[in-house]
Every structure is written in structure tokens, then in C-alpha cells.
């Protein structure tokens, strides 16, 4: 009985051997799947766990003026950042712990975190940027509680040493947007990068930005660094040597003061932009630290449009400044003789249209010289009538108006030199009468009114070209030659030359000398010892003004001039929106620039307490 019982039991135990064997084999098959068949995938996952690549941001190049004075530098700065991955505290707990010390409410915390909630969890979110020493001490004192959740992180920031000086030329930087990222080389640009957004910062971003380095670190499960198996040093960006002259720029902006307007100065022989001033401006340092939405809105809502570079982005009727180009065109076309005289009675009727001179009662008998000095409208109506609109346009374009100068900034406006074809095209949906070009419109253009418009840069550039005998060089804030030295491939500046007789240049220049030096409208631009030649413009403003109360429809004021009047070195254009008369509003700005230029040239300009001078490569 016992034996039989045991025999049966042993048979059943034997069955267990097969069960155990089968189960062990299937487990081995499972490990085969993970460790042999799929091993490569899990090796990658294990590496992803432990390797972290930490970007080291390359310092951006500085921006210098033509005498290597630093306009833009970098400064060290610290942010308080928060990492959500593996966070031990809720946002409420953090706000209670850090809110009082950082002067932030729970709502502030939530706002910051919500903005970045779609980003990867390991990426630090900035809770407070550009913190000061007490904030840093406050966070570091709580290191034990905060672990690697909230900490202080270094970040270099842009420092605009001169504040809003030349801000429209220099520009500012900001974080790259998803749209911008789409059009960039993904090897060089990454989400979160600071890039140039405006001005030279934007135009020469590739030169200013360096190549970021990185640290490859091994981290443990709490993201603490254990080892650093890889390191690549960041390569700093190149300094940008601009053609701007800090002294002249300061003089120009001081003279512009609180007025809305612009001034530009070019070196005639090279096309170097010495001054590019547009007012009102803004402080680009606001963008170096994250600008608050309300501060940005306030700037953006300013009816004076602070972000517009009035030197290149806006175009205005040139007014009487245009008469210089009319005179040159008339002389070159042979419709005007330097000895021609016209009797100005204050009123003139041409082709049945009656037009008046700005001076009631007229200027009497005027020759070309008097017509320029006194800015006689009647004289130039006659020139315009003889030239006709198409020839006016042809000469104006040749001399550099109505087309882009190709300056090295984005967003340049081309201005407009109207023709009958242009009008027919623009008014093609309107009636035939609207499309027709009228003789009176030619007369308006002749004195720089009507549809004709130029940018402030064009006015200076074309005037410089005319004064230097038809030689036009693309204006630039950075000489491509200086970039070649740093190994960048750039396009050479190729001067163009149009034909103009020396006698024409001579006659026109003499007239402009008279404007400034012989009791003309531009007397206030004169500089003792420096033969300044120029022309004022007082352009009527058509349409409603967008700002201001008392000075509705006040004229726009212009002054365009160069010096010395023979073999000119520098050409200047100054413009004041609704400034009134060119001679009183714009000429003093030109004077400030030319006077400073002349004093520097003759060694009378005292060494001033300027910003730091950069050490530069020889």
C-alpha cells in the first residue's frame, strides 16, 4: 500500500520536472529577446539615461565704432531657473518658499512655467532673469532644500554702452522664434538661442555669433553630474568694426534732441556711414534682459513709431532739396543755361495751371545761383516744364534717387520718383481721369512736392554722388574689407559712375555754398573755416498727422549738405518731421555734425571721457 502510494506520487513529481524545464526555457527565451536580439536599442536607451549634453553659449562679438571704441559689449548676468524634471516640490510650495525672497507671487511663477510648458521637462525655465547679489545669495542659501530643482545659472547678456545711441543702426538681440528657426541652419541655430533681431545685430548675426561649445556629462538618476567625458570649447564671435563715429553720432543725436527726425552722414570717398541717427529711439538694454510685455507694448504703441529707422525705412517728400537735382538735370539735358534768368512775380501760370512762389510778391529777376540760394519755385517750375516728367525721373534715378542704395541693413525703402507709367499702374483700377498724368503734377515734382519721395539716406547719398562728380559707392556701416580680414567671404564695394559735366557740378555746388555762406536759407549750417555747401527743404505735409496737437500740418524740415564744397569729404542729411522750416530746424543738426567733424579734423576736438577703447587685432 505505502509503496504503491509512493510510486503514484513519484510519477506526479516527475511531471513537475517537465513543467519547471519548460518555464525556465521560456524565461531564457525572454532574456535572449532583450539581451541579444534587442540589445542595441536598450544600449541606446541606457546611454540616453546617463549622457547629457550641456550647451556652453559662445560670447557674442562686440560692436565697435571706427576708432575701436566699444559700442556694444557683453556683461555677466545670472538667472534663477527651475527644472521640472524630477522636481520634489509643487509650484505652490516653491512659491511659498521663494516668493517672498525673490519678490514674486504664485501667479508670477505660474506665468513663467506655463509659457514653457510644452518644452522638454529637463530644460531650465527662467523664473527671474538678471538677478542681483541678494537674490543669488537667497537661492544659494536654500540649496539643500531646492537640490537641483531651482538654481542660479550664468548667462552673458548684451550691454549697449551708449544706451539708445544709434540704436536703429546697432539693433538688438532676442530669443530665436520658431519661425526664424525654420529658415536657419539647424547645425548653427538651436531653440533658445539669442540672435540679432534688428539693425547690425541682425544683419551681421553670422559674424557676431560664435560657435557654441558643449560639455558632455554623465549624470545619475537625480541629474547630478558624475563624470565629464566630453568637452568642446566655445568659440567667441568676431568683433564687428563699424564705420560709425561715436563723436559725430553723439553730436547728431544731441542736436536732434527730443524732435522726431533723422540724420545721416557719409564719408564721400568711401561710402562709410559716419552717423545714422533716428529719433525717437529706445534703450536696447531693455531687450538684453527679457523685456516685459507691458514695456514692449508701451514702446510699440508710441505714435511716434520708435522702432522705425527713419534714415532708411521711411520716405518723405524732399521739398526744395530736390531743386538741386532739378538744376543738375536741367544743365545736363541742355534745357538750362547757367546764364538763364526768369522773372519771378510770385505767381506763374503754366499750361493753364497757376502756381505760386513761396515768397509773396516774387523774387524778381533770378538766375540759377539766386534761384538756388533763395529757393525760388517759379524758376524751377520752368526747368521742370522744359525737362518734362520722364526726363526728370530718368536723371533723378541716375543720380541715386528712387532706388535702394543697398546699404548693409535690412528693410531699406526705395523712395519714389513718379512717372506717368507709374501713375497709370498704381491707379489702374480707377477711372481714366485718375490714371492720367497732369502737367501740374510735373510742376509739383519740380520743387520736390507731390508724389516724389526719398529716404534721408538717399538724399545724402545722391547729394554726395553729385558733389563728387557722379561717383556712387554703396553706403555701408561695415566695410567688407574688415570682414575679409576675419575670413568672411563678402561682396566687394563696387563704385558706379554716371556722366556729369564738371561745370554742372561746379555751378550747382557754388549755388549750395551760397545757401550756407551768402545769406541763403541754410546759414545755420555754416562752420567757420569749413566750406559747407547745402540746401534746405521745407516740404508741405499732406494728410493728417498721427501725433501731436498744436502743430498740425507743420512742414517737414530738411537740410542736405556737404563740406568742403570743393572735393567734398563728408555729406550730411538732416530731417525733422513737422519741424517747420529747413533752415531753422534741420540746418543746426547738420551744423552740429559738420562742426564736430571739422574740429576733429583740425585737432580742436578735446579728448572726451569716452567709453572703453577695444584692443583689436593689428
Amino acid at each position, binding site marked *: 500500500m505505502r509503496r504503491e502510494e509512493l510510486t503514484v506520487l513519484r510519477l506526479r513529481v516527475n511531471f513537475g520536472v517537465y513543467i*519547471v524545464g519548460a518555464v525556465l526555457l521560456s*524565461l531564457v527565451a525572454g532574456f535572449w529577446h*532583450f539581451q541579444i536580439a534587442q*540589445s542595441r536599442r536598450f544600449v541606446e*536607451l*541606457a546611454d540616453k539615461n546617463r549622457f547629457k549634453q550641456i550647451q556652453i553659449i559662445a560670447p557674442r562679438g562686440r560692436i565697435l565704432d571706427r576708432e575701436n571704441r566699444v559700442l556694444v559689449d557683453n556683461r555677466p548676468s545670472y538667472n534663477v531657473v527651475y527644472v521640472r524634471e524630477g522636481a520634489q516640490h509643487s509650484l505652490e510650495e516653491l512659491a511659498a518658499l521663494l516668493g517672498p525672497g525673490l519678490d514674486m507671487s504664485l501667479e508670477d511663477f505660474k506665468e513663467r512655467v506655463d509659457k514653457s510648458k510644452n518644452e522638454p521637462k529637463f530644460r531650465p525655465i527662467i523664473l527671474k532673469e538678471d538677478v542681483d547679489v541678494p537674490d543669488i545669495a537667497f537661492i544659494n542659501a536654500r540649496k539643500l532644500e531646492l537640490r537641483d530643482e531651482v538654481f542660479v545659472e550664468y548667462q552673458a547678456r548684451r550691454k549697449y554702452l551708449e544706451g539708445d545711441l544709434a540704436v536703429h543702426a546697432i539693433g538688438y538681440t532676442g530669443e530665436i522664434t520658431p519661425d526664424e528657426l525654420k529658415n536657419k541652419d539647424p547645425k548653427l541655430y538651436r531653440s533658445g538661442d539669442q540672435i540679432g533681431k534688428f539693425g547690425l545685430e541682425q544683419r551681421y548675426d553670422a559674424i557676431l555669433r560664435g560657435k557654441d561649445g558643449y560639455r558632455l556629462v554623465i549624470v545619475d538618476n537625480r541629474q547630478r553630474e558624475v563624470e565629464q567625458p566630453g568637452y568642446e570649447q566655445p568659440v567667441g564671435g568676431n568683433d564687428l568694426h563699424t564705420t560709425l563715429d561715436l563723436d559725430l553720432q553723439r553730436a547728431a543725436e544731441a542736436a536732434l534732441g527730443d524732435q522726431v527726425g533723422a540724420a545721416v552722414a557719409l564719408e564721400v570717398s568711401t561710402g562709410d556711414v559716419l552717423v545714422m541717427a533716428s529719433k525717437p529711439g529706445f534703450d536696447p538694454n531693455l531687450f538684453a534682459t527679457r523685456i516685459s510685455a507691458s514695456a514692449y507694448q508701451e514702446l510699440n504703441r508710441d505714435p511716434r513709431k520708435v522702432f522705425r529707422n527713419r534714415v532708411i525705412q521711411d520716405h518723405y517728400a524732399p521739398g526744395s532739396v530736390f531743386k538741386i537735382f532739378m538744376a543738375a538735370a536741367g544743365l545736363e539735358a541742355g534745357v538750362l543755361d547757367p546764364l538763364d534768368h526768369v522773372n519771378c512775380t510770385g505767381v506763374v501760370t503754366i499750361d493753364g495751371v497757376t502756381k505760386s512762389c513761396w515768397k509773396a510778391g516774387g523774387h524778381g529777376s533770378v538766375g540759377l545761383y539766386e534761384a538756388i540760394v533763395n529757393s525760388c519755385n517759379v524758376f524751377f517750375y520752368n526747368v521742370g516744364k522744359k525737362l518734362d516728367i520722364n526726363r526728370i525721373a530718368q536723371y533723378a534715378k541716375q543720380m541715386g534717387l528712387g532706388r535702394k542704395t543697398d546699404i548693409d541693413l535690412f528693410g531699406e525703402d526705395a523712395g519714389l520718383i513718379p512717372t506717368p507709367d507709374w501713375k497709370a499702374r498704381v491707379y489702374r483700377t480707377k477711372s481714366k481721369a485718375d490714371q492720367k498724368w497732369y502737367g501740374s503734377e510735373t510742376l509739383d515734382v519740380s520743387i520736390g512736392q507731390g508724389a516724389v519721395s526719398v529716404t534721408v539716406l538717399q538724399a545724402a547719398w545722391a547729394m554726395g554722388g553729385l558733389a563728387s562728380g557722379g561717383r556712387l559707392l554703396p553706403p555701408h556701416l561695415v566695410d567688407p574689407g574688415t570682414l575679409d580680414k576675419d575670413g568672411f567671404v563678402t561682396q566687394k564695394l563696387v563704385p558706379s559712375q554716371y556722366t556729369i559735366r564738371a561745370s554742372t557740378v561746379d555751378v550747382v555746388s557754388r549755388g549750395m555754398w551760397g545757401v550756407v555762406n551768402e545769406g541763403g536759407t541754410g546759414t545755420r549750417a555754416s562752420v567757420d573755416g569749413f566750406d559747407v555747401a547745402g540746401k534746405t527743404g521745407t516740404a508741405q505735409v499732406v494728410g493728417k498727422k498721427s501725433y501731436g496737437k498744436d502743430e498740425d500740418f507743420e512742414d517737414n524740415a530738411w537740410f542736405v549738405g556737404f563740406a568742403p564744397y570743393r572735393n567734398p569729404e563728408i555729406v550730411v542729411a538732416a530731417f525733422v518731421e513737422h519741424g517747420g522750416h529747413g533752415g531753422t530746424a534741420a540746418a543746426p543738426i547738420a551744423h552740429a555734425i559738420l562742426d564736430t567733424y571739422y574740429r576733429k579734423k583740425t585737432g580742436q576736438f578735446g579728448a572726451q571721457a569716452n567709453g572703453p577703447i577695444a584692443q583689436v587685432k593689428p
Partner: protein
Amino acid sequence: MPAPLEARSFGKDFDWTLFGAALLLALIGLTEIYSATMNIPGDVSFMKQAIFVTAGIALMFVIASVDYHSVSEHIPWLYLGSLAVLIYTPLAARRIAGAKSWIDLGPVSVQPSEIIKMVVVVAMARYLSDLHMKGYLTLNQILKAAVICAVPMGLILLQPDMGTALSYLPILGVGLLVRGLRPTVIVSVILIVVLIVPISAFLLSDYLKAHQKERLLTFIDPSRDPQGKGFQVQQSKIAIGSGGLAGKGIFKGSQNQLGFLPARHTDFIFSVVGEEMGFIGVLGTLGLLGFVLFRSLHNAQTARDSLGLFIIMGVVGVYFFHLVVNVAMVIGFFPVVGIPLPFLSYGGSSILTAFIGLGLVINVRRRRYVN
């Protein structure tokens, strides 16, 4: 009754091969426990485990030398005393991971529900061997056997510790199967398990504790909660998979050393083996565990009487259950239940239980030739 049995020479009859395999497993476990905790300053897991292994081996020799028949004779009060301890445990215990299953004994804490498993093994063996029959079990007998297992299980569920409670089931299951169940009953039970258990798990999910429900749902979809239980399994799979054929080297597993692997010296010790020793180490460890099981099954077949056979089969059932559930868990084939791997996982109670079981198996083997 047979005359009192005196074992022959201890050294000659002792199952040194079986003990050698178990010792090797314990050494692999100690190596990887050291590897898993060497970066934690002040951690004494390795030293504690070494002491427990030594204590376990001593206990094994003691148990191997006392005749299992006399153990069986003392089983009624041992069983009742165990129930008393299980009732006392949740009253005196500290709460660890949501369960009150530990009691402090001076410098160490003990998990009585682990060690008591071996008391139930002997109790079950005694009941089943006393039946002395050749045919199939009656319903009445099945129910009586079930009660022996169900009472301590129920007490453990109250702690609540479902993982340990479940590890009592194989004692009943293996015992009944070896004693003899009607094929129709076996087929019906399999059908019930296959069909009804998953359905009722959902229907009864309201009665499950939150962490149990969590584990079940995570098993069904491991990507559900990447930072929670599913995260553990995912990290365990990464550790094992990245170990490859030969492993990353002992003390060199990145998942282990950098702390990505959870519970790495306790329930997930086998992941460390997989990462640092690779597929070769896994084969070796599973081979040793398999050897312990096969050798024990062989010892069961050569047992002198049915009591010895049932004792060994109870121990085999417990070992096998722990092995399958733990190893399947670390590669995501089974939900995360807190069940240690015998001889390898860190834990004094687990190690003592494993060596007590080994002592029982060797005890039975030593007395196989008498009669």
C-alpha cells in the same frame, strides 16, 4: 510506526552539491548587492546580507539535522503559534511601502510572513501525507487543505501584503496536484483561471487597494505612468537589454551604478545580474536556480515516505513561484509584486526562508535509505 531514524554519517549523506549551488547563488547575490549599494554612503546592506547568509546556512544545518518526522509532530503548535505572530504583526509593525508586515527585533526587522511559509509547507505536507490514499481527493479533503493555507494567507492580506500572500498559493496548489486531483477538476480550475480571473479582476477592482490596482493597470500598459511602476519596469528592461551577451562588467553597470534602476538590491537584483553579467550571467544564475529545483525534485522522488516527498514539493513550489514571478517581473512579463528572488535578493527574512527550505530538502534526502 517505524523505529526512530538515525541518519548515517552527516558528512557523507549531506547533499553538498545542492548546498554548493545555493551557496553560489548567495555569493552572486552578495556580489551584486555590494555593486548596487557601494555608491550609497553609509549603506550596510552588504554586511547585513552577509550576516544573514551565514545565519541562514547555520539554520540550514540545524534544520537538516533534526528528523523531519519530529518536526512534523510539533507542527500543530508551530502552526498555531505562527497564526498568533501573524495576528500580532500588524499591531506592532511599522508601515513600510503601505504594508504592515515587519516587526522590529532589536537591531533587525523581520517579516514573519516569509518565514512562516515554511511552517505551512510542513503543515500541508503532514495533512496530505496522513491521507495515505491512491485515488483522487474528495471535495471535503480539498477544502480542509485549503483552510490550512487560507488562514495565514488571509491574515497576511490584512497587513495588507498581496505579493507575500500570493506566494502561499503554490504550497496548496503543488500539494493538491501531487496528492491527486481529478483531471476534470484540473481542467476546470485552469479554465476558471484563464476566463474568470481577468474579468473579476476588473469587476472587483474597486475592492483592490490603490497600489494594487496601479500595479495591475501598469502591467496591462507599462507606458501608462512612466515615472511610476511602469518606469521601474522600463528601467529594468533597459538595464537587462543593455547588458547584452557578456554584460557591462561587475560594478560597471551604468543603470545600476547611476541609480536609474529601482529597488536594485532587493526585488530587482536580477536586473543588476542581467546588466553587469549579461546573458551569460543570466544563463548561469538561472541554471543554478534550475539545478536547485531539479535536484530537489530528484530528492522528492527518492524520499523515504510521502511526508518527506510533500515537504520537498512544498519547498519546490515556493522556490519556483518566487523564481518565476520575480524573474518574469524584471523583464515585464508579470506585474510588479514585491516578491524577492530566493538566495539572491537582499532581505534577511527572505534569505532565512530560502535556507530553511534548503535545510528541509536536505533533511529529507539524508533519511532516504532507511528501510
